[in-house]
């Protein structure tokens, strides 16, 4: 069975959890989060390409990523890296640059847990400044999600029409 992606966002709490298991040892999963050339291969959305402005992945480092949609829209994110403890933990801040005002920063903790049979459990906890910050972030993601699924639908139609 495919590994399930779980998103937990309790009502009224400014926190969001993403959990997922992988059929790979945690050293590899950790590397995929921590090395630029690996990150580029999976973090972009379905219809988005991803660029790395910089990614200094170490305790005290920082990053800035840019997602570009097929229509040329750009969404940039940046943050500072509080802690990188290989292969178990990454703690960093996250800020979406597209908001009308600055300061809506969230704190992300990614935990990589070794499971039996060379499997890994990933938990990403995001703590936002407020519940509306969290809900706004999810809603912004949803806008892209809709574009994603529309594009997939288009691709399906194209295949059907051939």
């Amino acid at each position, binding site marked *: 069975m495919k590994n399930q*992606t779980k*998103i937990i966002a309790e009502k009224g709490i400014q926190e969001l959890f993403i959990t997922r298991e*992988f059929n*790979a040892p945690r050293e*590899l999963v950790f590397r*995929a989060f921590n090395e630029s050339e690996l990150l580029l291969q999976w973090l972009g*959305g379905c219809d988005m390409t991803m660029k790395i402005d910089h990614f200094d992945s170490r305790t005290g480092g920082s990053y800035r990523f840019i997602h570009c949609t097929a229509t040329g829209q750009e969404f940039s994110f940046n943050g500072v890296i509080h802690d990188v403890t290989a292969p178990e933990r990454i703690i960093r801040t996250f800020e979406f640059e597209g908001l009308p005002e600055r300061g809506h920063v969230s704190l992300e903790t990614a935990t990589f847990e070794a499971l039996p049979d060379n499997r890994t459990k990933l938990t990403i906890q995001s703590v936002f400044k407020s519940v509306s910050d969290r809900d706004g972030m*999810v809603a912004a993601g949803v806008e892209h*999600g809709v574009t*994603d699924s529309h594009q997939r639908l288009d691709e399906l139609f194209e295949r059907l029409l051939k």
Partner: protein
Amino acid sequence: MIAHQTLTPNGVADNFDLSRQAISKHIKILTECGIITITQQGRERYCFIQPQKMDEVADWLADFRKIWESRFDKLDNLLIKMQSKTDNDKSK
């Protein structure tokens, strides 16, 4: 966006690369769903978000989850490639 501050429909439009007409269409739909309400204050109309309504929208996290599912599917493929490379290196 209006989760962070209350804006007029034109204020919302200023933040997007879309026509005012397109924005007003989106706002109309969101108003009909009850996700935002429009309040008249003096000469201006303001958009207010109704967060409790967002929770009621059927599985509001579904599309957000889809984005992460598609990322993690790609990551699965990458990990398979990385693993077979590690195995090859070992057998050398």
